[in-house]
């Protein structure tokens, strides 16, 4: 994909005429036509701003190219298609249109008869190029006029039923574009959409007030004929055109459309054709959404809901549900359609069959009896159809899934409890647990279809989870939890079902206002089954259990002391996903540790070495990634300032291990941790948004000691016994900003600088990029400009004296080289000599010139700031931020490729490797 490039550079501008010439030459054939697509993408990007006006002025060769191809009698089909698209693109501006008209290109290019005569029209690529060209061009009145004059509407209408699906779809979109491009206006309805409150009137009245173009009227006539056609494709395309057009139609056009199509639509709806259910419903919904509510439209929608096929009716009902303004009658019908199968299967009463009777008091008794009997007949009829439907396994499952998935949307506040009972009953049926009293007579076969069906189970559990938001749900918490527990107990529950059960259970546990009364249920029933599931043979189950345990910790329903031992055990699971989830779950329990006292701290002490061990030893990336995330959470909840010295030793280990990990994501997460450490160590100076308060744990750290001598050793050992640097300075609460040198030396001591440089020289681009931006931030905030430049930091001397040790690092020679180059440059500016002997010869201080040995001999460390300034971070960042294939993807490369390909094709046949 060519990146949108609005300005053409000079190199491209030089090459383009040659490319055009090559492309226009019929003797040259382009072996790979994807380059034409790329070329068009690039040119489209260039024309975005001004519809190609500037492009045409700067590159007249494009016009020549188009004329040559279009005036040729037998061009290559793919080249013709490209030229048609391009001509449309260029004709999108009136200027370009006129230029093309002046050369009489458009009339020839868009003469479909001409291409038919040449036998090119049979190629779908030509037809689709033609459609795209017209569509691109149709941005101004001139183009519309041209279309009318050239009689292009007819071929477009023919293309609507093209055998190629892509062509037919594009033609449909073009027709919709034509209809909505120049919308008719009426005297009474100028621009507003909502003024149309009167019922739709007949065509005669509207034609008088509407100024619809002849093209619009032609399309409308065609549309009307399509809808009453015997040809299925034509009807389908007509409906699709309607559903595409209606959402964009303004009031007048909508009115015009509806006046024409409502009657044919009625015919289609009443014919009850199953193959048209979905497109018809799309049209009705589009019509409903696009304008004011109309009784005839509502009637049609209600008729769709009365479909004899329960699945179709349910599909229609589900589609109607999201309508914001649904008339109450329609909504009731929707609810009835969706709830009826559920009622039939579960035996829980969900529908009030006599609703109408109660609301209409004016009926006489006789009328009521008559209506009742009619309704009963209809009910029985529907029920037997429904029964047939439910007796077939596949239709039963899809119907019940559809109904259950939409329960939340249909449920009324007052019927919430019954719907909940129904969903629970359904879940019991699926589990093979339903008691005989609830099974409805005649539906035993249907029930057999559902037993053990995990698809329905999943839908049911999702529905149960979403119903937790209903009012009155609180009263049913225990019942629901019992159902969910059964699912967790059932050894046959599919792994995905177990997962859904957990999700639902979390939702229900969280709505409970008094978690205390759930304690026995959780302790006696839930925890044992969770422990069992932790030993499940399927890792997916163990994984979801671990995740659930993590969420339980957060919800506070169970004390994390009970859960943490289970999670600690899961750290040695065989499956890396489970280990990773266990680490994440432990991280979730961390924020609670402060609240849960010494016991929890003890657990944490157990957890930290275990996860560190995973970081150093685990062969799977997932687990190691989770470990770094764990420490990110850990750092957020345990700011360095408040924790013991062992914490910084732990962090040092994490950074040293994480920054040299094999997995690039681990390294990226490690850099996130670095970011966090930087923010904490240099509060108020780094990373915080302008105006925002420093983080709550914004207190300074200082591991200074005697700088430059107490170099922290970045050991890979997990049990580092190095004494932590003494805390030399306690910040006052009123002093949020740490002195930069102290902060920087703190970072050095934690191994942050080493980790960042590990990242910077990493072979993975995202890692290097992230490290580079962090280093830039650090440098710009903390480090003073090097000598000879304007100093920004106040405490120049102390900051620039913060040293770090680079011995043993693979990137040390590179850093030294850069440093030497920088110095060479600086000294040259200072008029001093060059100290070239130093490069790459860090160990032999005797050979080093005095200044080098004095300031940055390897034994004593190198100044952090000096290194940061020497690395050329800005350049690195700009190189790194470009994708690795930016050269190959550039427009210049594309143009060169085209030229090379055609040249190569001239010389000898080259098989292009398109892998």
């Amino acid at each position, binding site marked *: 994909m060519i990146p949108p490039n609005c300005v053409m550079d000079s190199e491209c501008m030089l090459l383009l005429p040659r490319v055009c010439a090559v492309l226009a030459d019929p003797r040259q054939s382009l072996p790979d036509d994807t380059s034409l697509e790329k070329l068009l993408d690039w040119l489209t990007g260039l024309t975005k701003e001004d519809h190609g006006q500037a492009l045409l002025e700067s590159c007249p060769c494009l016009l020549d190219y188009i004329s040559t191809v279009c005036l040729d009698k037998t061009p290559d089909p793919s080249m013709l298609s490209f030229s048609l698209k391009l001509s449309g693109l260029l004709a999108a501006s009136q200027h370009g249109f006129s230029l093309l008209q002046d050369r009489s290109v458009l009339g020839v290019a868009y003469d479909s008869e001409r291409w038919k005569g040449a036998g090119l029209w049979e190629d779908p690529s030509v037809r689709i190029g033609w459609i795209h060209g017209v569509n691109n061009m149709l941005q101004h009145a001139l183009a519309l006029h041209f279309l009318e004059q050239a009689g292009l509407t007819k071929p477009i209408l023919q293309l609507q039923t093209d055998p190629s699906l892509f062509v037919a779809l594009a033609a449909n979109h073009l027709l919709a574009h034509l209809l909505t491009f120049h919308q008719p206006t009426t005297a009474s309805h100028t621009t507003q959409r909502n003024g149309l409150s009167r019922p739709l009137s007949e065509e005669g009245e509207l034609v008088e007030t509407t100024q619809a173009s002849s093209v619009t009227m032609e399309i409308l006539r065609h549309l009307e004929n399509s809808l009453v056609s015997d040809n299925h494709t034509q009807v389908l395309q007509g409906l699709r055109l309607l559903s595409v057009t209606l959402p964009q139609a303004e009031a007048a056009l909508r009115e015009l459309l509806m006046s024409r199509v409502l009657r044919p639509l009625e015919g289609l709806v009443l014919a009850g054709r199953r193959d048209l259910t979905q497109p018809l419903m799309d049209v009705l919904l589009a019509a409903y959404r696009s304008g004011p509510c109309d009784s005839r439209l509502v009637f049609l929608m209600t008729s769709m809901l009365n479909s004899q096929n329960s699945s179709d009716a349910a599909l229609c009902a589900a589609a109607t549900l999201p309508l914001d303004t649904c008339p109450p009658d329609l909504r009731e019908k929707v609810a009835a359609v969706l709830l009826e199968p559920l009622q039939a299967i579960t035996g829980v009463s969900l529908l009030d069959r006599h609703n109408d009777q109660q609301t209409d008091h004016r009926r006489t008794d006789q009328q009521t009896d008559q209506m009742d009997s009619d309704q009963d007949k209809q009910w029985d009829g529907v029920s037997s159809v429904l029964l047939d439907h439910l007796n077939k396994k596949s239709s039963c499952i899809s119907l019940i899934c559809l109904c259950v998935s939409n329960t939340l949307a249909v449920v009324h506040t007052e019927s919430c409890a019954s719907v909940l009972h129904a969903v629970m009953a359904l879940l019991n049926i699926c589990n093979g647990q339903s008691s005989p009293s609830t099974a409805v007579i005649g539906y035993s076969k249907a029930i057999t279809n559902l037993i053990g069906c995990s698809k329905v189970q999943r839908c049911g559990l999702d529905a149960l989870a979403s119903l937790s938001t209903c009012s009155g749900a609180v009263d049913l918490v225990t019942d629901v939890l019992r159902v969910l527990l059964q699912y967790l107990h059932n050894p046959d529950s599919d792994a995905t079902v177990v997962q859904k059960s957990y999700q639902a259970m979390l939702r229900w546990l969280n709505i409970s206002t008094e978690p205390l009364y759930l304690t026995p249920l959780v302790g006696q029933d839930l925890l044992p089954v969770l*422990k069992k599931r932790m*030993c499940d*043979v399927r890792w997916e189950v163990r994984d979801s259990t671990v995740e659930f345990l993590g969420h339980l910790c957060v919800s506070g329903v169970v004390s994390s002391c009970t859960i943490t031992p289970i999670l600690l055990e899961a750290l040695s699971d065989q499956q890396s996903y489970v280990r990773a989830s266990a680490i994440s779950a432990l991280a979730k329990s961390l924020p609670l540790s402060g609240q849960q006292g010494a016991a929890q701290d003890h657990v944490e002490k157990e957890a930290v070495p275990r996860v560190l061990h995973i970081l150093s030893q685990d062969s799977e990336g997932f687990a190691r990634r989770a470990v770094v995330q764990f420490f990110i959470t850990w750092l957020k909840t345990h700011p360095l300032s408040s924790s013991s010295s062992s914490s910084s030793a732990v962090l040092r280990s994490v950074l040293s291990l994480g920054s040299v990990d094999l997995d690039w994501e681990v390294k990226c997460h490690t850099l996130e941790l670095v970011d966090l450490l930087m923010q904490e160590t240099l509060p108020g100076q780094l990373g915080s948004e302008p105006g925002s308060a420093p983080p709550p744990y914004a207190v300074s750290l200082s591991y200074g000691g005697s700088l430059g001598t107490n170099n922290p050793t970045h050991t890979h050992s997990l049990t580092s016994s190095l004494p932590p640097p003494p805390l030399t300075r306690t910040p006052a609460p009123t002093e949020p900003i740490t002195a930069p040198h102290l902060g920087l030396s703190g970072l050095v001591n934690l191994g942050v600088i080493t980790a960042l440089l590990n990242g910077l020289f990493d072979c993975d681009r995202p890692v290097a990029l992230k490290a580079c931006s962090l280093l830039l931030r650090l440098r710009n905030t903390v480090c003073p400009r090097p000598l000879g430049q304007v100093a920004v930091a106040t405490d120049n001397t102390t900051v620039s004296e913060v040293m770090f040790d680079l011995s043993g690092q693979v990137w040390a020679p590179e850093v030294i080289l850069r440093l030497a180059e920088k110095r060479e440059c600086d000294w040259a500016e200072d008029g001093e000599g060059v100290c070239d002997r130093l490069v790459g010869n860090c160990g032999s201080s005797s050979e080093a010139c005095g200044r080098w040995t004095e300031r940055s001999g390897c034994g004593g460390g190198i100044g952090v700031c000096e290194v940061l300034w020497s690395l050329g971070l800005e350049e690195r960042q700009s190189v790194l931020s470009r994708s690795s294939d930016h050269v190959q993807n550039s427009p210049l490369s594309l143009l060169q490729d085209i030229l090379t390909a055609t040249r190569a094709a001239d010389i000898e046949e080259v098989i292009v490797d398109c892998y």
Partner: protein
Amino acid sequence: MKLYCLSGHPTLPCNVLKFKSTTIMLDCGLDTTSVLQFLPLPLVHSPRLSKLPGWVSKDGTINLEKELKECAGRVFVDSQPEFCLPERELLDLSTIDVILISNYHCMMALPYITEHTGFTGSVYATEPTLQIGRLLMEELVNFMERVPKAQSATCWKNKEIQRVLPGPLKDAVEVLTWKTCYSIQDVNSALSKVQLVGYSQKVELFGAVQVTPLSSGYSLGSSNWIIQSHYEKVSYVSGSSLLTTHPQPMDQSSLKNSDVLILTGLTQMPTANPDGMLGDFCSNLAMTIRAGGNVLVPCYSSGVIYDLLECLYQFIENANLGSTPFYFLSPVANSSLEFSQIFAEWLCHNKQSKVYLPEPPFPHAELIQTNKLKHYPSIHGDFSTDFRQPCVVFTGHPSLRFGDVVHFMELWGKSSLNTIIFTEPDFSYLDALAPYQPLSMKCVYCPIDTRLNFHQVSKLLKEVQPLHVVCPEQYTQPPPSQSHRSDLMLELQPPPMPYRRCSVLGLPFRRRYERIHLLPELAKSLVPSEIKPGVSLATVSAVLQSKDNKHTLQPVPKPLPLPPSKKRKRVVEEPPEVLAPKPLLSGSVPLEAFLAVLHKVRVSLKTLNTYLAC
């Protein structure tokens, strides 16, 4: 054709089929659930069990202190456990010609049938069935003889007394047929009558019928049987499985086109999916071991245990249970584990191919090699020195009434850390545990029954399309505890014929044809005349000879030549001239042609009428 049903137990069938003058017994399963009424037989003296109070009726009129003991709120018979035998009065067992065995679980009553009944026929079974069946019988005898009980209780079986006993003794059925275990001599004698057969081998029975065993996929050497004559085919399906376990897969196609299919041995646990149960078994096991407890698995010494060990082989590594010892205790443990490895030809394809690697087909060999699985004949001897806890013990008997398992129940029952996991579906776990109550150890029920479930059997029957299906009555209605589960019964068209214990069913098809052979010389003499294209008729005069249920038409013997007269030399007789056969009348009379001929020969219709009237 008749079917005599001697057992009401759907998975331990014993039926007799009378077909074409042969009497064939199909399986002889032994219902061992009766032992649940008896007190356990402890291997080591148990103070608790020896001090149980005897039972006296409330009014004191019936005193059965010696026979019945009260234990944990229930009454148990204190004697050598007894088994419920197949019905022996319905039919004279000495008339049985052959017994066909389908798997080793369904032959445990064999000594009761073949010994001391006058049985003189043969028994057909596959080699693994015989060998593993022998192991199971020897184990049973060993369990009983190891802990002999002097007394045998008979008074409580008196109908008048049994009526007043507390449940479930009161409701025990057929108590008079209950018998103590057979002896090892009976076992040897019974098994000596077994003739080995291989899958798809055709065995002729008296020339009347042919029986063929087919792989049933349930256990090593398990088979279904085809019993067929030239024109009739009866299939006997017993204990089959479509799951991928260790045995050879089930042969379904040979069951097609049966006139009658006798269906027994479906899963006893239709709601427990074996995969789910296996998963549950593993998780409970791991959970207990991690908590420092022991796991007791009461099981048979052959069958599902091979799959359990294979599953555990994979699981223990994953669940970090590598250091936990697994013990398998049975008098026949060693033979069982080793036999399973040598029956390669009876195993599923996967395992068969391992033999050529060379690798033992079952991974338990590796468990034994690495000392993770150890097997012992009993708790005495080496086991007591090697025993280390926490551990997992597999041992019998699953009824918890005899065998080494009784000892572990006494040993581990008091600690809630331990778990007993039931995997065999034959016994109600609550009844099995009754004499050990109150029990602290956790109890988990994971019955693993790989036999066909109702869904699978419906599919199978749709495929093989038998004309009639005969099955135990239990399969024609949902289980009593789950009367809403209409999916847990057989729904067929025409409905299956149900049977129960002591039923005698007339099977609903009639024999209409019998195959008769023509001797070549007779066939040569026939002169068929074609009466319509493809159909020829010929008259035949011959002698029908029936021997060994085979029928043959032979030429009529020529009359014996008269003994030559001493006085006159007899003229040599000319061979009789073979005459051309006369045209035969058959089919309908072409009326018009017939009338025309009559008219030609001047027989008018009137004359004919007069003639016919006369």
